[in-house]
């Protein structure tokens, strides 16, 4: 009896989703220097203000250290350094985005500013051809919103890179 109920619910959901034909993804738009980067919202568990980062000696330069996130010690990396940009400049707008990937622990990412949330469907995303430079290695595509271009970050490969090094 219960299974039947579950089925019904699924069907209802399916029918609700039917009008939407294309897949859409929501991105949090962040600023690094002059450029805008989008991070898939499903990986983001929290966005916090800048807080004290405790340096960890003898680790890669882009690892800024560890922070205290509600009693958990979370490593924090500089997205700027990871993307081959200049060292971060901490301002009032600097944010730490806490990312949580399935089966991984949380990690903090420093960005210059968090701007907005955009919804992009497949049509507005252009898959870029991959150059071999540091930056585009971590991009999954470029999204177009109101004549602006947003580089979409492939968070999984950014973090996979962190784990490996």
């Amino acid at each position, binding site marked *: *009896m*219960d*299974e039947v*109920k*579950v089925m019904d619910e699924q069907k209802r959901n399916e029918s609700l989703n039917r009008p939407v034909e294309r897949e859409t993804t929501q991105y949090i738009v962040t600023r690094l220097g002059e450029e805008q980067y989008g991070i898939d919202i499903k990986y983001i568990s929290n966005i916090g203000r800048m807080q*004290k980062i*405790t*340096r*960890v*000696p*003898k*680790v890669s330069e882009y*690892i800024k*250290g*560890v*922070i*205290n996130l509600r*009693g*958990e*010690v*979370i*490593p924090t*990396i500089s997205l700027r350094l990871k993307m081959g940009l200049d060292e971060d400049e901490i301002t009032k707008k600097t944010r730490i985005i806490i990312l949580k990937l399935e*089966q*991984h*622990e*949380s*990690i903090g990412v420093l960005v210059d500013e968090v701007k907005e949330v955009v919804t992009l469907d497949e049509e507005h995303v252009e898959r870029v051809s991959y150059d071999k430079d540091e930056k585009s290695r971590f991009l999954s595509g470029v999204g177009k919103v109101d004549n602006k271009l947003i580089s979409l970050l492939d968070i999984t490969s950014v*973090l996979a890179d*962190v*784990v490996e*090094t």
Partner: protein
Amino acid sequence: MDTSQYLEIFLDETKEHLQNLNTQIMDLEQNPENMDTINEIFRAAHSLKGMAGTMGYKRMQALTHDMENVFSEVRNGTFKVQPDMIDVLFKCLDALEEYLENIQQTTEEGTNDNEDLIKILNDILKNGGTVNAGGGTSAPAAEQSAEKAPEQAAAAAPAEGKTARWQEIKISDTERTLIDKAHSDNLKVYGVTVYVEEACVLKAARAFLVFKALEKLGEIIVSEPPAQDIEDEKFELTFSLIFISSSAKEEVISAIKNVSEIEEALCEEYVVPQAAAPQTTDEPVVETQPAVPQETAAPAASTPAAATPAASAPAAAKPANKPANKPVVNRTVRVDIEKLDNLMNLVSELIIAKNSLVAATSSDGSKSDLGSVNEHIEYLESVTTNLHESVMKVRMVPIESVVAKFPRMIRDLSKKLDKKMELYMTGEDTELDRTVVDEIGDPLMHMLRNSADHGLEPNDVRVANGKPEVGSIFLDAYQDGNNVVIEVRDDGGGINIEAVRNKAIERGTITHEQAEGMTDKEIIDLLFLPSFSTAKKVSDVSGRGVGLDVVKSKIESLSGEVEVKNKFGEGSSWIIRLPLTLAIIQALMVVIGDEKFAIALGSIQTIEDVAPEDIKLVQAKEVMHIRGTVIPIIRMNKVLDIPPREDENKNLTVIIVKKGDKQAGLVVDELIGQQEVVIKSMGKYIKVPKIISGATILGNGDVALILDANALI
């Protein structure tokens, strides 16, 4: 059917039963005639079978079933326990443990049918029966009939004493309406009473299955006790319900009886008791109520079903991705209720302390209240200290759970190596942090195997050397201050230092010249190097050289240490020293540059104030001379890449740390003081340098790193 919500209980209890079986069968080997042991074994095997069946682990059930059969015959005195049988039984236990391991990893039992074992068991049943049939004396036979009597009685006269209790269900007007409606729809209304077997372990699971089976046939409108209570296992051996269905009575009964461990199901057409006539005419009441009883019955039964697919889906998905990942089931600790009560008390005290602090600070007249605030803070401090101790106690478990399997292991080794040996254990009740207890099993096993294989000489050599023929291995555990010491000792030949030295030279680990200058202790330390083994023969017990280095690194990862005491010709003892707990340590907070660090107090010997001119250079390294010893100096700011402070000429603060018999002086800039710190993991993203053993969160919310002084020496 989905039973994953019971998986944890199942694993826990199965482990317990298996351990129990292991111990009991060991016992049986010594006293094959002990009826109590045999009964205990039978009961454990029976419960295992039942539990495996409930959870749908068919292979496990089949194997335990055949084991149970054998025990049952032994219990009935049909045949006696023979040494060969013990071996087979142990093999069965190993196979069961394998199933259990599989279940823990993947929730599946695996595909090993263990047909050979089942066949052997059946052969025992056949042959044992024919060989010893006449041998069965009258005494056991009498016992058999006595024991069987209640069972037979139960089987023969199921209805005896088992009344149809559904008449006792009090039905409300709502149910009455439903029943009337059912009658008018030409549906049948049944009263059902189900009796669960007395030995049934997961009554709630059985009841759930009964509900599930009945819901396929119709609708349960009310049950006694209520569905929620049944789900929570708040019932004795019976429950009753009223059930609307179009199926025939026989179908209903057989559906219920399909569920195993159901002793009896009674089902008759339900007649609405006439005593209280339906008289409510109030429309709203009738209208608002109907949903209620139905919902309590149906969702209560459906909650496990709804909740478990969600739970089982990731469980099933995980092993597919990472088969070697953590067990699907969370680790649990069984806690003495008294410890919990104590915790509750402390928490309420904590709340009182907080409230009085709030009261003290919110009232005006700040000066007069300062004293009382301090008083409250002191109170708060004592409460938190007690709370900490109590929580730690909850985490502590006796090492018994780990060491209990060793007698069996030594017995097997004794047979395999063809050496007579005996294991003596003391201090099994010594308590350690759960995380530590889980980890020390393997290292201890390694060391015991080493003792059995390398340590003890063959029996004839022992006799020739004037030692008792049977070798002794000792496992002693005891608490020593903030440490727990576990000692593995044997009265064998001890470590042959010369053999190790020659082997090391032969393997090129050290040169001849180095070998000359090495002390015995240094030579023994070579044994802990990877891939070093002096065993002439590689056996499947030991001698591959993968053992001791793993033991050492494991113990060190638990912040413990291994020490070896050796007397050539008389045996060796391996001493493991482990911290009581890993989660919270006493630490000294220091400042280096402008960063704060914690150093575990355990490794600190003294703190010295040293004038810069007292530091000398020896071979371009800084050392200092203190109380007759020369101690190398380590400038912490250099190690940690921190720019040095300006005031070069000031006296230096040097923390003397000790590892084994080596010492070092750590130069820091400031001391803050002693503090209890909670160790937090730094995650897997950062490959932390060895000198950092973790992080902790300070009172102001900042993170401070914990320095591992051992890694510096």
